[in-house]
């Protein structure tokens, strides 16, 4: 993707991020599974991840801790949402490096 196109997209991202930032950092009420600021699909993902966390670790958690985990998952989803909005091309590589040993 050209830098110009990407800058335009970034402005679009900036507006989206501002809308997201205007929401409270942790807005989900304990009894309300749907987190504000997330789409239905994102809320569904939060719910799926919450259920998986409870499946894995639920026997260690109090009700209060479970509610807090749900809020944390919603906050994490919001951050991931900002990342997913950022335009990337197929060839955009991650900032991870395979370091060759080369017989050292």
């Amino acid at each position: 993707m050209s830098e110009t196109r990407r800058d335009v997209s970034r402005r679009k991202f900036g507006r989206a991020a501002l809308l997201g930032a205007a929401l409270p950092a942790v807005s989900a009420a304990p009894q309300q599974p749907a987190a504000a600021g997330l789409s239905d699909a994102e809320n569904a993902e939060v719910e799926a991840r919450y259920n998986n966390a409870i499946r894995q670790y639920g026997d260690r958690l109090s009700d209060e801790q479970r509610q807090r985990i749900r809020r944390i998952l919603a906050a994490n989803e919001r951050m991931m949402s900002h990342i997913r909005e950022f335009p990337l091309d197929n060839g955009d590589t991650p900032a991870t490096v395979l370091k060759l040993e080369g017989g050292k």
Partner: protein
Amino acid sequence: MLGEEILYLPISELGRHLRQKSFSPVELAQSYLDRSHKIGPKLNAYVTITSELAIEQARSAEKEIAAGHYRGPLHGVPYALKDLVAVKGYRTTWGARPYVDQTFDYNATIVEKLNAAGAVLIGKAAMIELAGGLGYSNGFAALTGAARNPWNTECWTCGSSSGSGAVVAAGLAPWAIGSDTRGSIICPTSWCGISGMRPSFGRVSRYGAMAIAWTMDKLGPMARTADDCGLILSVIAGPDPKDHDSQFTGPFHYPASELEPKPLRIGKLTNVWGRLPEELETAVTKALATMEKAGARVSDVEMPEGPFEDAAELTILIEAASAFQTLIRSGDCARLDDPLGQINGYASDQFSATDYLQVQRVRAFLQRKVDKLFDSFDVLATAGQQSVAQRLTPAPRPQQPPLQKGPAQPSSQPLSQPLSQPRPAANRNAQTKPPDGVSSLCGLPALAVPCGFNSEGLPMAIQFIGRAGNDHAVIAAARMFQALTEWHKKRPAIS
């Protein structure tokens, strides 16, 4: 015992006295040990004071210097080490209850380098549990209780290198090693009124140091002056095959005036931190005006827009979930002091591999955008932190059963505001746009130094951020400022 006028000297001055035999390394080490035993517990500054080792190393330095074998600027000079770095034969607790008896049978690379330089280890400095790796809510999330700020013991030092900040500010040692994943050197440096540097990512080997986030963790110096930071960095930096992320092939030479930018081009960041307290904003503006008068070129600049904070936070959360996988899966995270740390790993364990790679793809793009700023500027400047040191509030809240042995009991008093470095997801505030996420995500060096005191007598700081790999520029900028001012020479009234 040597007096404060000696114990607060910078490294170069201490070294000069040692070479001139004004006092001996043993006398110097004993003076810092005495002060550490006397004042350290009041500040919760240490996990372990390594008295025997310190005297042994000081005696060795004394003999060598007397014989004319001078190893360099740190020879015979005491220091403290954040308790996440392995020292053979001593506990390395990572500041956390589950690791209270942990020992290693080897030295970290940084310890080997400091031993070879003849430095004298006074003690293992206190820290936030796991350096905040699984999140934390306040300064009391530490095995040894909240580290108290020498400028006002009702205030916190900030974290996670909380003990390192207290040790240097209180004159318990002339310098210390801290670690910084996202602000954990810069924040305690700023709140404690000292000079501290986060080197470029990959400059200093982390072999033998606890990992939070492999692609963001750095070790660095906290000291009296920027010059001290340069001297320490010249000893601890260098390639290490034992650290996968070691990025530089050669040593770090200091001083190296030919590598320092002249005239210095400073970009004053105008869109970070949100609204600063007026006193702090004024102090930073005055600091830059002072530098401009002395020949620096200062102009305003904006940090590019982008999901820097999100990318930094997510990188830490996901990498920490892997780094502390054993703790999370075993359920031992329940033994951490902080309620957030007890459960945050369970949430972070739910990220997918695609999530992580997506963040890292965005990160590479953000790195290039930020790097372009340094075509026009040698360093970016802004306040060291968004505020001065925050107060601790007396609101007891029981958390964990007391330890049967080991260091002082953690207090359960929360801070008046949840402040943490790195910030836990539940407490983050992206609207304030802190620059530590950007600079840490991109592996940039930064150096914070005091630039004044507010009306309550608490230190205020300015930080200089440089291009990745250009550690000389941030040292040069901070050193230039300290040559023009006296803020770094102030010391707290503590006894």
